[in-house]
């Protein structure tokens, strides 16, 4: 019974939102407001239950983890943002997070997004057993990366053999990349629609498996 009512409510909201395709209407507006309220409310409930209660409140109440008062007080300082006279105090927890997160992320980002990528761009063009399209692919990949980087390098005018031709090849490579992304984006959007149709025809109406 609970599930049945739930699916009916879900189906009615689904159809109500699709009515937006014809014309904007009040049910759509209600739904978009509900989404904001429920997600924030859900977030508050989960955050308290999964993080604040077991990691801060319960240990403090048990009486032997007084050191947790430090993150607790630092966290509470966020709330000063709403008290104009002392709102500057909210900068302390924000500063703590900004600094430490930037520091922690620096070497790891360097490895993940820079060093490994440079390493990945330095591969042998040919190894025994490689098919012709793989060899061609490697050439395209290496020269393409270099050319696309040249295109993004704006400190020099895009003229001459290296910068001029390089940036021209670069934009061609980038366009192929964007084309692939567009193709995948279409695929993704259709997939989301498929999910809803499966819900309406399957879970709700039971006319498909």
């Amino acid at each position, binding site marked *: 019974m609970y599930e049945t009512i739930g699916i009916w409510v879900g189906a009615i909201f689904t159809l109500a939102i699709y009515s937006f*395709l*014809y014309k904007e209407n009040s049910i759509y507006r209600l739904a978009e407001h509900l989404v904001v309220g429920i*997600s924030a409310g*859900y*977030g508050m409930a*989960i*955050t308290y*239950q*999964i*993080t604040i209660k*077991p*990691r801060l409140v319960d240990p403090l109440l048990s009486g032997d983890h007084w050191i947790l008062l430090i993150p607790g007080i630092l966290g509470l300082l966020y709330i000063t943002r709403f008290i104009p006279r002392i709102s500057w105090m909210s900068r302390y927890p924000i500063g703590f*997070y900004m600094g430490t*997160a930037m520091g*922690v*992320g620096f070497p*790891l*980002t360097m*490895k*993940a*997004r820079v060093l*490994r*990528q440079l*390493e*990945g761009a330095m591969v042998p063009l040919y190894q025994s057993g490689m098919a012709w399209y793989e060899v061609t692919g490697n050439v395209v*990949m290496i020269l393409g990366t270099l050319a696309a980087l040249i295109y993004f390098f704006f400190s020099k005018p895009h003229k001459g053999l290296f910068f001029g031709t390089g940036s021209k090849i670069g934009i061609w490579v980038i366009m192929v*990349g964007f084309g*692939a*992304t567009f193709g*995948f*984006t*279409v*695929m*993704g*959007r*259709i*997939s*989301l*629609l*498929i*999910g*809803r*149709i*499966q819900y309406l*025809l399957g879970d709700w109406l039971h*006319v*498909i*498996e």
Partner: protein
Amino acid sequence: MSAVNIWERMLNIDRRWIFLGIGIVSIVPFFINFGMPVRTTIEVESIYDYVDELGSENAIFISFDFAPGTQAENMPMAVAVMRHAFYNDVPVFMTANWPLHHGMMLAAMEYVFNPTTEGFYQDIDFDDWRELREAGVTAKGDLVDAWESQGNQLPDGAMGWVFEGRDYAALGYAPVFNLVILGMTISIETQYPIDAHENALGEMPMLQEHKSLREVDLTLTCSGSAACEWWITYAREKIGMPVAFGVTAVSATDYFPYLQTGQVIGQMGGLRGAAEYEVLLAENGITSSTDKAFTGMDVQSVAHILIILLIIMGNIAFFAGGFHKKALLKEGR
């Protein structure tokens, strides 16, 4: 009526006709059921092969890093890998990087454990097998034997038993998830003293065997945003943890560099990627049939054809009408 007017009228067609077309091609193929085969790719096969090699002494993470908005793409990936792991008795830790994603984790469990789902797994709550646990029966094979010897019978249609704390732990959401990942490289329990069902993690056999990410064999991040990259940055690069991606089609093309460097072992891109994994599961007898992702591929085919036709028709009207030589018409062409 001049020729130009025909093209102009065509280009100015009420977009609701296009909406109707998309609506029709999204519904009709479900009833015709072409069942066109889906060929698997190396990107998905490598995840399947990796998970298939694992056993009860290993453990994996499935991170639910997607919101309801992209569940149509991400959920089948998570469900497929979860089923694969359960089939091989591989313990699964489940996390979420945002509160709504926590809900998606619970929804995935609801689906896999629901008796109305074909090939469901019978879930045993952590409290329900406390006596056996306290008696020291925690190895999966022994646990199933002991459990069944107590008179419990596997329901019809169920693929097997899954014991909370032995086969899975629903850890859920924690704030600043990138730092949570980093913290789990030191201790999982510190980040999650309790799970989403308020069970103490320290009492779970699977946690006692896998205390930190260093003792876990793989993370599959099913992601609808760039959060999947956190697993690369904070787990892969920090401790060398193997990571697999299950990402939305929109972002899948961005992550091919990670595949080529080996920073991710494989990638399921969009519904197609999930469908490939479902095909692999069904072909290898891990599930009796494919699931929602595969079923959706017929619609995907027809819808792509329609969109390509729309592109072609739009271009024909644009060039045949000579609009490429003129200033922009109304509607921003």
